[in-house]
């Protein structure tokens, strides 16, 4: 009986994830827009600010600093869009086809999260492949560390997206929410500047913002080697988030986002069960 239930859930997860990927592959415009945005950010900001902003730390210029932040941002946006996919399914009626099938609700939520995570990972890897174009050095270690961290971040943000998506009725509502909440949080997460050296109010907001820890986790993969090799700049660290004198490590960053994400996913499952 328990085995049957598990099989049922697992089938739900992969069937739903399969469809998310199928949709993604067939919708060229979405592929172009989600992949295009980070690349445009990268090109415009790095080219535009390269000469204005010097090295943020020894050996770390602005492009090297921003690049991991852009990867994190792209992961966030893609993962949160899993929630939009639920709203979209509700609007076109497809959600009913899913709800009346024998797939269980938890499997549906986890399947959406898995689908979004695979898409987010795919886009992160595409960005990674473009690293040499921006003059960012790559190594096998970076790739191997990036994959699990991206997956944890993507699942967490998908949990957030799905929690909202399970309650929303219109796509417009979801878009507004993304613009009013997700973009500001992303910009305040240290994608474009180090959060340890900003005005006090912004520092507080940024350090309360869970996305900050996600951005930091990804940035550390790229910069940890460079910075320890060359020594820290005096005063404010550009990696690690310093809270009450303690500077976080990668493990702490990922654990914080991951635990919060797990709670959000569980919340999404409950909410989805109740609202459908």
């Amino acid at each position: 009986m328990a085995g049957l239930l598990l099989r049922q859930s697992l089938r739900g997860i992969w069937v739903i994830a399969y469809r998310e990927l199928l949709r993604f592959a067939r919708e060229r415009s979405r592929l172009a827009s989600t992949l295009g945005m980070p690349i445009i950010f990268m090109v415009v900001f790095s080219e535009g600010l390269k000469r204005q902003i010097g090295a943020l730390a020894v050996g770390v210029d602005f492009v090297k600093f921003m690049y991991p932040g852009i990867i994190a941002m792209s992961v966030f946006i893609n993962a949160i869009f899993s929630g939009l996919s639920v709203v979209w399914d509700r609007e076109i009626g497809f959600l009913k086809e899913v709800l009346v099938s024998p797939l269980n609700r938890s499997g549906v939520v986890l399947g959406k999260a898995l689908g979004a995570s695979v898409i987010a990972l795919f886009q992160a890897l595409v960005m990674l492949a473009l690293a040499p174009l921006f003059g960012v050095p790559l190594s096998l270690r970076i790739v191997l560390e990036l994959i699990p961290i991206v997956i944890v971040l993507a699942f967490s943000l998908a949990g957030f997206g799905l929690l909202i998506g399970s309650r929303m009725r219109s796509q417009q509502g979801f878009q507004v929410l993304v613009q009013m909440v997700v973009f500001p949080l992303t910009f305040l997460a240290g994608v474009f500047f180090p959060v340890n050296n900003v005005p006090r109010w912004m520092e507080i907001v940024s350090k309360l913002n869970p996305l900050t820890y996600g951005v930091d986790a990804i940035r550390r993969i790229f910069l940890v080697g460079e910075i320890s090799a060359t020594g820290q700049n005096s005063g404010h660290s550009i990696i690690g988030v310093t809270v009450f004198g303690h500077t976080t490590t990668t493990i702490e960053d990922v654990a914080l986002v991951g635990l919060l994400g797990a709670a959000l996913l569980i919340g999404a499952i409950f909410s989805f069960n109740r609202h459908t």
Partner: protein
Amino acid sequence: MNHEQKTPSVSETVISTAGLVRNFGHTQAVKGISFSVAEGEVFGFLGPNGAGKTTTISMLCTLLAPSAGEATVAGFDIRSKRTEVRRSIGLVFQDPTLDEYLTAIQNLRFHAYAYGVPKRVRDERIYELLNLMELWDRRNSSVREFSGGMKRRLEIARGLLHHPRILFLDEPTLGLDPQTRHRIWKYVLDLRRRESLTIFLTTHYMDEAENCDRIAIIDKGEIVALDRPEALKDSLGGDVVTLRVEDGKGAVAELFARYELSASIEGGGVCFKLPGAEEFLPGLMRSFSCEILGVTVRRPTLDDVFLSLTGHSIRDDRPATGQQLRRYLNTPGMKSQLN
């Protein structure tokens, strides 16, 4: 068609409800309905929009929890055995539920995966159903490019993919042109013959209800009648005959004296009701002493049945004039004015 064999017996009942109720806030959309459907039957819910048809279907399909009452579908309780119920039924909704960005065959595959249809059955079944619905040639087209009728056919194919025991069709031909509606019905009746399938459908089209073995007439959340379409129509007392004659009063008197028919003069004609009027009339014409200038015979329609049971027409969804006036006069304000 022998309808007697289709009367539900205990052993082959596939849907049974007892006092099913659904409230939305303070309004009661379904007010305690009870009925049962036999295996292999085409059972129709006929009623105007807002009568509670879709609410009932949603409860039977486990999409909506009943506020009170009991129901079993394919032998499973709709509250405690939801997964089993879902596995046993196919459902075609009123509004499309296809993923339009996917192709026809991708939509079907998704459904097969979701219902765990074994691989060796799957492709054969998809081929068979798409052929039956005349969509095989379009299997790799995006559903976006399909017409309303094609989408509906694809949804019916999808609903049958996992060999359900019962197919639920909620207004299967709503918004389709008459030719397409006719075709959809041809498929549905074909299917029933091939697959010992029970079909539960809702409609507000009278002519469609005629295709059902039995229909439940539902109005304002209650079943007001449940029988074979012919029996429902016969319950009105037979065909409506109108004679155009020179001497109306004389004709009324003669009809009563010779045939014990109580006729009345309505709109310049003499009207009476009689089962099997077509057989009766030739004899009457030969021996009737008043001169008959014209005859019309009208079979009562389900609309007449609906009208006589509820006091309003199913189509215009408004009370008939007499009823409306009576209601108007019955409002407290009016009464005091009249007194």
